[in-house]
């Protein structure tokens, strides 16, 4: 199996601005335009990020695209699947029935219920459409970075 690119979280540099969420939502919106996404689209997409903050420690957590992913084992519809070409754990909203087995199984707690158009699970897809995760691209302090199978940093410019 191919190992996916991964987002590494460096909580010591997370400033807590939450721009990652803003750009995640924008990237997963219909218009992909930040102002339209926020001011016009209903329902607004759910961000793939859980932002946690306590005192001065904070971080933005998204799906870890586990090697041995419990959500894949728990999903009763096959909506949660491993994309063979990239190694990523992806989610097919069409098949999903919103049973929340994945929410139960994910030890990082990063699958969110999305009560938008239809009740489905929702999680980070590493912006597969855009080829580079929006949260990483826009993190002003490089608190979240993308690495390849070997753990080497991947920069947006290189993609």
């Amino acid at each position: 199996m191919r190992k996916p690119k991964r987002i590494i979280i460096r909580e010591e540099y997370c400033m807590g601005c939450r721009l990652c969420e803003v750009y995640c939502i924008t990237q997963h919106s219909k218009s992909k335009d930040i102002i339209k996404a926020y001011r016009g689209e209903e329902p607004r997409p759910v961000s793939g990020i859980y932002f946690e903050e306590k005192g001065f420690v904070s971080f933005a957590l998204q799906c870890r695209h586990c090697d041995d992913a419990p959500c894949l084992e728990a999903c009763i519809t096959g909506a949660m699947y491993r994309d063979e070409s990239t190694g990523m754990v992806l989610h097919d909203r069409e098949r999903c029935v919103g049973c929340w087995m994945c929410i139960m199984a994910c030890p990082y707690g990063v699958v969110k219920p999305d009560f938008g158009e239809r009740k489905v699970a929702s999680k980070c897809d590493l912006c597969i459409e855009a080829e580079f995760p929006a949260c990483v691209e826009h993190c002003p302090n490089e608190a979240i970075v993308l690495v390849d199978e070997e753990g080497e940093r991947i920069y947006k410019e290189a993609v």
Partner: protein
Amino acid sequence: MTRSRYLIIGNSTAGVAAIEAIRQVDGKGAITVVSDEDVVNYSRPLISYYLGGRVSEERMAFRDRRFYERNGVTLILGRKAEELDVEGRKVVLSDGTSLHYGKLLIATGGRPIIPPMDGLQKVREGAFTFTRLSDAKGILGYIRENEVEEAVVLGAGLIGLKATEGLVERGVKVTIVELADRILANTLDREASAILERALGDWGCKVIKEDTISRVVSSRGKVREVVLRSGRSLSAPLLVIAVGVRPNLELVEDTPISYDRGITVDEHMRTSVEDVYAAGDVAQAKDFLSGWSSVIAVWPVAFRQGKVAGWNMAGREVRYEGLFPMNSVELAGIPTISFGTTTPPEADGYEILTRRDEESYRKIVLKENRLVGAIFLGRIERAGIFSGLIRDGIDVSSFKEELLSDDFGLLVLPAEYRKHMVTGEGMEV
């Protein structure tokens, strides 16, 4: 006579998981899968969604036909494995075919328990169990043909309630009969049961507790009415019997393979006979919490066991670490997730934390500062973190107060553990 390196009996959760695992290790060895059901693939938990009309037949599969093709699996459908000869390493099917195997996986799951009820043997139509797609189809057809408007469901366990949900979605009024003094007695605690029961009531369902069906009345082979132990009788143009499942041991009964409640397996999912493995609802494997072995008939456990069995069959040695009961269901619009021991024996050193508010109920069960069980009702976000805490045996004393807080997350976990989780590359296998 065909011979295959891997023979799998049962084409459901555990069987499919085993195929995936085998192929991760061995890309070529021939795999044959036998199922007595006549469907390429479907997800058992979805039968209630199908019954309720929420999922179409095409969407029932959790792996499509291409999955079998891609993995080079020979599928033998609609035939039952009737005899197992472990000496001769072969399985004989209902049509007389013999299949030789190198490694055998028994993933025959469970079958519904049918408690004794007078008059049931006279019923030819209108009484169903609810574990297979054919059951759901049968019920649906019966409702349509007979314009059924009400039904009795025996058993307020998970399957009974799921059947109820499907029926309600089809406009059928359901009365549930349950022997225990509450619904979902095996998975939930009293408080959670009460909340769900109220919600079921709001939904128009009636729940009769501490009672059971003693007699079934039929006419011309069709079920009409049930009489309860209390003497009460209920009109029942449709009866669904859902009091539980038990491991499907038929195939091993006359073999040297040991079994207890289910087929007993070791940490590599091996049975007592060489090259024969068992996984899923039919297997009795290590229970993470008690350390004993038990049958835990839920999907994620079946899947994991199937995978571990597959890996080991193909030669990658992987230990099954044991799992615990876990479930996620949504009943009457209320999502519920539960893990492990939710109603521990009193005293015995358990500590219980609960929190109740408008839209949610949460309960945490601790033993010696380690999580052994939890219930989340209403708000289920981030519940999975708790499954991780159980599995990793994390001492929660330093953040016990936070366990039930609204913003519970990885951040409250001890820094080292958290850093390993968030900085690392996901779970190491």
